[in-house]
């Protein structure tokens, strides 16, 4: 038991304490300007967040952001992993290039892509104009839908290597003789994929999706660097909303903490639901 003490201490200090502190903070009136007059104000912060006219829109944005980001990250990651499964010359170097975005800072990526998507000076518009696809630059950040498309595109580009890494590892663990048996039984590549490959990588896929949903929901970097949640809150997700409260509402850490608790609650419900569903399915198998 004594051997666990260091581990529990580290987890307690780095995870449990900040979570509890944030939870307490969400019931107080903690802003930087009244740091010496902090008191409990009940559910006022939650009321202000939930009654804000934009909360529904922010929740919807969060759902769109997570759903499309994770879906396309998974599909592209899966495709890439399948392509890289068989050894070929220079696979290591190629893999290095493909996985490179994963090693970059999200905020730096956001800033770079912001310029790439720029309506007046961006390279993307320049290429499209030179190719004759468009006549004048598209203002990605002045249109609510295009702005969301832009930030999700960048997030897909950033996140799909992670899926590829995880799925590739799972693919390499599938015994070759299972495939050979399938081929001998006359299975075509599509059947092989759905009857052999997918069931084998399913646990990894589920866990990776779960992890990515949690990370993507808590990942304001790209959006903050590209749009700060604009235009007119069209790309504002919960984690960006939380930052905006701190920066633009007199450093209101308590209200921001209330948003943080809401994020944690949503993720807890989602995680529990996912585990229940996936465990049931496993039992059915």
């Amino acid at each position, binding site marked *: 038991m004594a051997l666990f003490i260091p581990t529990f201490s580290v987890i307690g200090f780095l995870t449990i304490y900040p979570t509890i502190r944030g939870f307490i903070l969400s019931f107080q009136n903690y802003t*930087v*300007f009244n*740091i*010496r007059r902090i008191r409990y104000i009940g559910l006022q912060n939650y009321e202000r967040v939930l009654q804000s006219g934009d909360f529904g829109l922010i929740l919807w944005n969060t759902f769109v952001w997570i759903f499309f980001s994770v879906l396309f990250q998974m599909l592209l990651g899966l495709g890439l992993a399948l392509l890289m499964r068989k050894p070929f010359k220079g696979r290591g170097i190629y893999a290095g290039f493909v996985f490179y975005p994963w090693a970059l800072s999200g905020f730096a990526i956001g800033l770079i892509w912001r310029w790439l998507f*720029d*309506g*007046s*000076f961006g390279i993307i518009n320049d290429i499209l104009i030179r190719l004759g696809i468009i*006549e*004048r*630059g598209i*203002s*990605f*950040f*002045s249109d*609510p839908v295009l702005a969301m498309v832009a930030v999700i595109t960048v997030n897909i580009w950033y996140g799909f290597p992670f899926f590829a890494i995880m799925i590739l590892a799972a693919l390499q663990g599938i015994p070759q003789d299972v495939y050979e048996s399938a081929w001998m039984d006359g299975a075509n590549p599509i059947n092989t994929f759905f009857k052999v490959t997918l069931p084998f990588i399913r646990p990894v896929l589920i866990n990776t999706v779960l992890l990515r949903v949690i990370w993507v929901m808590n990942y304001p970097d790209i959006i903050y660097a590209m*749009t*700060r949640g*604009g*235009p*007119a*809150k069209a790309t504002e997700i919960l984690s960006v909303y939380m930052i*905006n409260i*701190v*920066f*633009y*509402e*007199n*450093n209101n850490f308590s209200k921001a903490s209330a948003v943080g608790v809401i994020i944690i609650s949503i993720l807890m419900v989602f995680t529990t639901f996912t585990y229940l569903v996936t465990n049931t399915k496993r039992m059915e198998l």
Partner: protein
Amino acid sequence: MRKTLLTLVLLCVLFTSILFSNTTLRMIQVFASPERTKIIENIIEKFEALKPGVKIELISPPYETAVSKVNIMMSNEEPLDIVEVSDWLLSGLVSMGVLENLERYITRSEQAKYWVDGVVEAARTVNNTAYIMPNAIYVKTLFYRPDILEKYNILGAPRSMGEMMAICQYITNGRDQYGYSYRGIDPVNFMDLVLCSFFNDIDPACMYKTTSGKIIFEDPRALEGLKFYIELYHKASPKDSISWGFDEQVNAFVSGLTPILFQDPDTTALLNYLLTTGVYKTAPLPVGPGGKVYPTFGFGGWGIPSYSKNKDIAWEFIEFFNLPENAAYFCKEYGALPVDSRIYESDPYFGSAVFDGWAAMFDDPVTYQITAYPIDNELWGEWFRLQGDIQERLLMNRMTPERALQEFTNFWKDAGI
């Protein structure tokens, strides 16, 4: 006698060196950039050379998070001896009770005698007490590109808002040429400049009130001004300028995409670096239908935390920083208007054509009437976000100007201005 004097001098030197030995001042700036940091470090180096034993540790947080960083450090009473305080940060820090009252220092200072008009009032913005020693003034003016305008046979800068709209619309082709460098992110001060120019009775002490005490957003002239400002975006500015901050605004101006720009003097340093002399000029802000325009008197300065243990040495550095030669160097390299009137007389740079816009405005304080934001109001920090959000909705036609003005009015009524 000589021996006694010599002994006294030596004792003084010894005493001073003991007093100042191994003193480290911690200083934080809020408008940090690599260039600005270098400028301040150069002045620090000169000070350290004069004061052996005194070291100054400069903290330069990223611009976007600097205000929060200062707020948090000071509220937690983290070690700091000199803090840069912008006008918009001042009232919050004073209300937290963490800024030292500098009256005893400033009243003794020779430098205060040479401050240009408005600086005394700026220093005493909150509670009529000086909590900072201003180091620079920021007043917006009109920047324009004669080379671009001449291509369209337009000579000189627009003198009125109407003329500016006509010019901007005339040269806008919707592809690679627009008129006005619109500000999408944090539009406070850009929207207000245009909107207030439709008035002729703005309160000099509060930009959002008329001299009769009425909130300006309740007045029909505000609606005219707001509609004008929205039209400026739709008819004469790039669509993506809805998401433009300072960098994009200046970039568009430098590239010639938008040859008309409202900005602060710190833009001059960047433009002097990016453009050759004479390619850009400044002119007074265009006046509105009210015959006036109302720039605000922005300022920044150095303050001392009330809990600092090195207040006297910190003050010595602040005075050193504001000596005419150091202040001139800082303002020229960084791009700001000096607070010391002697600099305008002694340094030809501040009398050059680059400063024509400001010179003309300061010469006619009736037409170019300086006014102030209600920065001492508790809800000032939230105003930023509200005005920015509403501007985006207006530009995307998701809100009517009438509704926007109603929201603005409600906000300031609740805030109690």
